């Protein structure tokens, strides 16, 4: 039974070139190209930088990448649904406040994290409601909430950091701890979330709804999908995942910093687009996004290893983003026959 199904579908793709299969193959090639890029980066720096290809350095980079990976999942999902969320950088700073303050008061990691997630949920609901139900352009909404949150944090803290006085072991473990003494917990969290949401996007009905809504909103609506609800939930997912990233960041710096996450949204957006997730919606995958994040993270780590100052890292990263997207665009045009 199963075999006949398979041969059927094979025959299908061979004889009638249905659109989804062509698209699917394009995605596959996209991720392959990204993987080759990542390997090239790894090989280049392994040869040129001492200790680059060590377990210690690799896992360190994974730990550093966990922030962008976690928030990138949400960013990619919102992009795929055809919207954008640039409020995540300010969100990182905002949710650190309830987290640290409640932990300082109650000495409970659970309560602190719950408060942070509750804040993240509220922000997601606001972004999602204003975009999906009030119908305001998501770039405007999240630009607005980005200002509001950053200003709110400045107001509340008086532009001073709030230190973590509770120093809970479990909280510190989020930044220092390693599973089996190898992989940082933050990376483990990111990978688990990535796998879970990757499964949702590819194999669950809701994932398909997101692709459908981003691909063609009108068709999705006619197919009976609740477009508004799908987008609403995408924004909540994005805010909650950025909250997780914010918790990891707060653990790493050991305080609630008013400047936390400045320009973070640009880094994540860049990595996501580098990973082949289209701003137009409906195109891309979480695997691609993850590869995009890893390429940029290993690149900056390797450049630091070469002794280049951070300024050069910025310059080179900028060039690579432009070059990669340009290359990708050229390839796509050729695939579509010009």
């Amino acid at each position, binding site marked *: 039974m199963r075999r006949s199904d398979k041969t059927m579908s094979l025959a299908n793709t061979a004889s009638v070139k249905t659109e989804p299969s062509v698209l699917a193959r394009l995605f596959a090639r996209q991720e392959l190209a990204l993987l080759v890029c990542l390997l090239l980066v790894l090989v280049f720096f392994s040869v040129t930088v001492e200790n680059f290809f060590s377990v210690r350095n690799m896992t360190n980079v994974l730990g550093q990448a966990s922030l962008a990976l976690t928030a990138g999942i949400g960013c990619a999902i919102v992009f795929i649904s055809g919207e954008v969320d640039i409020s995540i950088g300010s969100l990182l700073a905002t949710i650190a406040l309830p987290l640290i303050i409640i932990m300082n008061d109650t000495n409970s990691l659970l309560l602190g994290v719950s408060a942070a997630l509750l804040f993240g949920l509220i922000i997601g609901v606001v972004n999602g409601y204003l975009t999906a139900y009030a119908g305001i352009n998501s770039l*405007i909404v999240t630009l607005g909430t980005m200002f509001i949150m950053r*200003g709110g944090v400045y107001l509340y803290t008086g532009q001073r950091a709030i230190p973590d006085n509770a120093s809970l072991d479990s909280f510190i473990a989020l930044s220092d701890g390693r599973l089996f003494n190898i992989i940082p917990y933050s990376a483990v969290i990111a990978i688990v979330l990535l796998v879970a949401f990757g499964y949702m996007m590819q194999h669950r009905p809701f994932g398909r709804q997101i692709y459908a809504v981003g691909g063609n909103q009108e068709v999705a609506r006619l197919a009976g999908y609740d477009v508004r609800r799908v987008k609403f939930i995408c924004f909540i997912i994005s805010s909650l995942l950025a909250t997780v990233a914010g918790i990891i960041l707060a653990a790493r710096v050991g305080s609630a910093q008013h400047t936390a996450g400045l320009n973070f949204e640009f880094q994540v957006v860049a990595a996501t687009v580098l990973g082949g997730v289209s701003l137009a919606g409906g195109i891309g995958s979480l695997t691609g996004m993850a590869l995009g994040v890893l390429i940029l993270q290993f690149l900056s780590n390797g450049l630091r290893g070469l002794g280049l100052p951070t*300024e050069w890292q910025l310059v080179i990263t*900028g060039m690579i983003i432009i070059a990669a*997207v340009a290359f990708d*665009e050229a390839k796509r045009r050729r695939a579509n026959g010009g």
Partner: protein
Amino acid sequence: MSELTHASAPKRFIGGQLLGSSQLVLCIILAVLCIAISIAAPQFYSEANIIAILRQCALVLIVASGMTMLIITAEVDLSVGASLAFVGCIGMAVLNSTHSLALGMLTALAFAGGVGLFNGLVVTRLRVNSLIATIGTMMMLQGGVYLFTREAVQNHNQLASFTDLGAGYVGPVPVPVILAALIFVVAYVTLRFTTLGRYLYAVGANEKAVRLSGVRSERLKLFAFVVTGLCVGVAGMILSSLMNAGQPTAGRGFELTVIAAVILGGTSLLGGRGSLFGTLLGVLVLKVIDNGIIILGWNQDLQMVVPGVVIILATYLDIIRNRANVR
């Protein structure tokens, strides 16, 4: 059919040519703001304060004039903040070594125009989405300015004409305001009364149709990018004159303020719709809020919160009004 004509006729009658869809809302917001602030703090209406507000508007308005054209063609430039800082440093360095305002200005314009040209070429030739392309340029410029100088480039030339660029007056009006007004008027006339302007709208509304009718849409977009760059060049020199130094950290978040003002003015990010008059109102609203917060003695961090609320609110009111119009 009759409903359609009914809906559009009164709009043309009330709104006329000047007040488009969202401008009316903005005018009301601006009026309410001015009245509320001057009731709470009468010094708001002093001549000195009004001139101060205008001066603060100048920088944003100059760049927003170019940005409005760019957004009307359905593209965006996020690199203007980073470019602003870089231009200030380079311009100041050239002034210091040559003691010539003309050379400094030329270098600044050439550099900023070059950045615009680069952005435009990447977007039109390489087909990179402008949001991403200009994030890339922003990173390159942010890194580049620190490679150029690690600290502020101090003003060693003390040219009177350069100081006047930021701090000078013609009669009671500050020089930056005059420059901003000039640039605004030129941009306004271009967009409103020339074929070029009409093509810019057309490209944003339907690029394919424009291309099929034989106009080179890429050239038009390239033009808008370069104009935005040149505006940044002027603004960068004014800023470095005001600060009496080229600051590599200047212009942080400037791109967002400019874009916020343009969007607030009713220009659609999807392209093809918007006006410079709206942008002017947008800039005024944002800067009157800034000024009001200072005059009322409120915490200055509110200067970030309130504009955020206003952008969302104004856009929402616009949507509600449009819905009512359709009905």
